[in-house]
C-alpha cells in the first residue's frame, strides 16, 4: 500500500491529466450524428497512430549496433505511419464525399 501512496503522490499531475483527458474525450465526442460515425471512427483511428512517437523515440535511443531494437523499431515506425497517414487520408476521402453533395 505504501508503494501505491508513493506512486500516487509522485505522479499526481499525470493522474490529473489522465482523468481530465478522459472527461474531455467523452465531452468532445458525446453527440455525434449517425452520418459522422464512420469518419469519426476512422479519424480517431488515425489519431491512435500517435503510437509512432514511441517508436521514433525507441529507434533514436537504440544503440547503432543493436539490430534487434533497430529492426523492430523500424517496423514499429512503419506500422504507426501506415496507421496515421492512411487513416487521415481515408477519412478525408470519406468527408470529401459528404461535402460535395451539400447543395
Amino acid at each position, binding site marked *: 500500500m505504501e508503494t501505491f501512496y508513493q506512486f500516487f503522490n509522485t505522479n499526481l499531475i499525470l493522474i490529473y491529466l489522465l482523468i481530465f483527458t478522459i472527461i474531455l*474525450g467523452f465531452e468532445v465526442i458525446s453527440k455525434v450524428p449517425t452520418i459522422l460515425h464512420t469518419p*469519426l471512427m476512422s479519424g*480517431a483511428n488515425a489519431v491512435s*497512430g500517435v503510437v509512432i512517437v514511441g517508436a521514433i523515440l525507441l529507434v533514436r535511443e537504440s544503440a547503432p549496433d543493436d539490430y534487434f531494437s533497430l529492426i523492430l523499431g523500424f517496423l514499429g515506425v512503419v506500422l504507426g505511419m501506415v496507421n496515421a497517414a492512411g487513416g487521415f487520408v481515408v477519412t478525408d476521402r470519406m468527408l470529401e464525399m459528404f461535402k460535395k453533395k451539400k447543395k
Partner: protein
Amino acid sequence: MAYNFYVNLAYLLGAVGFVWGLRLLSSPDSARRGNFIAGLGMGLSIIAALFAPMEGAANNYGWIVGAMAVGAIVGYLAAKKVKMTAMPQMVSIFNGLGGACAVVLAGVELYLFYHGKRMLDTGGLVIILLTLLIGAVAFTGSMLAYAKLEGLVDDRKVTFRGHNIVNNIMLLVTVGLGVWLCVEGKESGTTLPIVVGILALIYGFSFVAPIGGADMPVVISLLNSFSGLSAAAAGLIYGNNLMLVGGILVGASGTILTVLMCNAMNRSLLNVLIGGFGTSGTSAAKATGDQVVKEVTMNDAAIQLYYSQSAMIVPGYGLAVAQAQKVCKEIDDLLEANGVDVKYAIHPVAGRMPGHMNVLLAEADVPYPKLLDLEDANSALPNTDIVVIVGANDVVNPAAEDDPGSPIYGMPVLKVWEAKNVIVLKRSMRSGYAGIENPLFFHDRTRMLFGDAKDTLTKLVAEIKTL
C-alpha cells in the same frame, strides 16, 4: 533551454490539434477541417519526437526516415486506392496496425529489460504488459475483423460450443501469467514474456471469433478504442504526455461509439461479447410457418413507386454486398423527377460498421439531408406511401416490438409496417444474420421482390423509364 521549449510547445500543440480536430469531426460542416487539424497535430507531434533532446542518443535518423517514408507511401496508396465499399475493412486494418506497433514497442522494451539494458520497477513492467496485452488484442482482433468483413472467414466456422468459457479462461491465464511476470521480474526468465505475448495475440483472435454479423459495428468500435488505449499505455512507457492524451481521446471516442451501437440494439456490451445473436435466439416464436408471402411484379412495383407522393428507402447490409448504392440513387433521381419525395431511413446498426450506410450513400452522391436517422424516420413513416427495403432485415423486424420471446425484443427498429405499402427486396426467404424469422415479410402491407438487390433495382429502373 529555448530548444526544449519549442519541442514541448510542438507536443502541446499536437495534443491541442487532436482535441480540436476530434471536436470539429463531430459536426458535418466542420468535419473535414477537423480531420485536417488532427492530421496537422500528428505532423507536429512527429516532428517534436524527431527533435526532442535526448542525451547521448544515437538518433539513427536513417532508419527512422526510411521507415516513415515506407509507412507514409504504403498508407497513402492504400487509402487512395481502396474502394469506398471496402472502407470497413480498410479501417480495421489500419486499426490493427496501430495495435501491432504497440506490441512491437512493448516487445522491444521487454527485450531490453531482460538483457539488462533497461532498468524497470514493478510499475514500469505493469505498464509495458498492459501495452502488450491491449495492443495484441487490438492487432489480431482487428485482423480477424478484417477477414470477416472481407468475407474470407465464415462467422460460424471459427467458433465452437463453449467458446466464451475458453476465452475467459485464456484471458485469466494470460493476465495471471502477466501478474506473475510483474512480481518475479527478471527472475522469471525470457520464456514467460514470450508466452504471455503469444497468448495475448491468440486471445485477440479468439475474442473476436464468436462475434459476427450484425454485431460487427460494436466490435469494430471496441477494437478502435483498444488501439487508442494501447497507444496511451505506450505513452506511459515513454513518459510522453502527448501519446497519453491522443490515446485516451481515441479510447473515449471508441467507447462512446461502442455504447451508441449497443444502445441501438438495446443490448449490453457484455451480452454482445458473450452471446452471439444467432446462438442465443432459440426462443423466437416460429408461428409464421404456414403463412405465405405475397410477391409483386416488377411492373407493379414500378408503378407504385412512380406515382406515390413519398417514398422511403431502407438500406441494409444487403445493399453493401450487392454494391447497389448507385442504382439506388438512379431510382431516387427518376422518382424525384416525377415529384416523389424520396428519403432514406438509416438504422444506427445497419451494415457492418458504425455509419456504414451513410458512407455508401454518400459515395453514390445522395445528399445527406435526405438521410433520416431512426427517430426522424419513425415519425415520417406513417405518412409515407411506400417503403423499399434493400437488403435490411433485422432492423425492420416487428418482432422487436411485439414478440417478447424474440432475441431482438426491445431493440429499437424502423417501424416500416406503419407506412402504407412496403416492398422488400430480398435474395431469398432466408433469415437475416440474426437467424430470426421476420414477420414483416408476411404482413398484409408487404410485397416481396426476390432477387439480387442490384439486379432487381436495375430492372426496376428500366421499368420506371417505360412509364
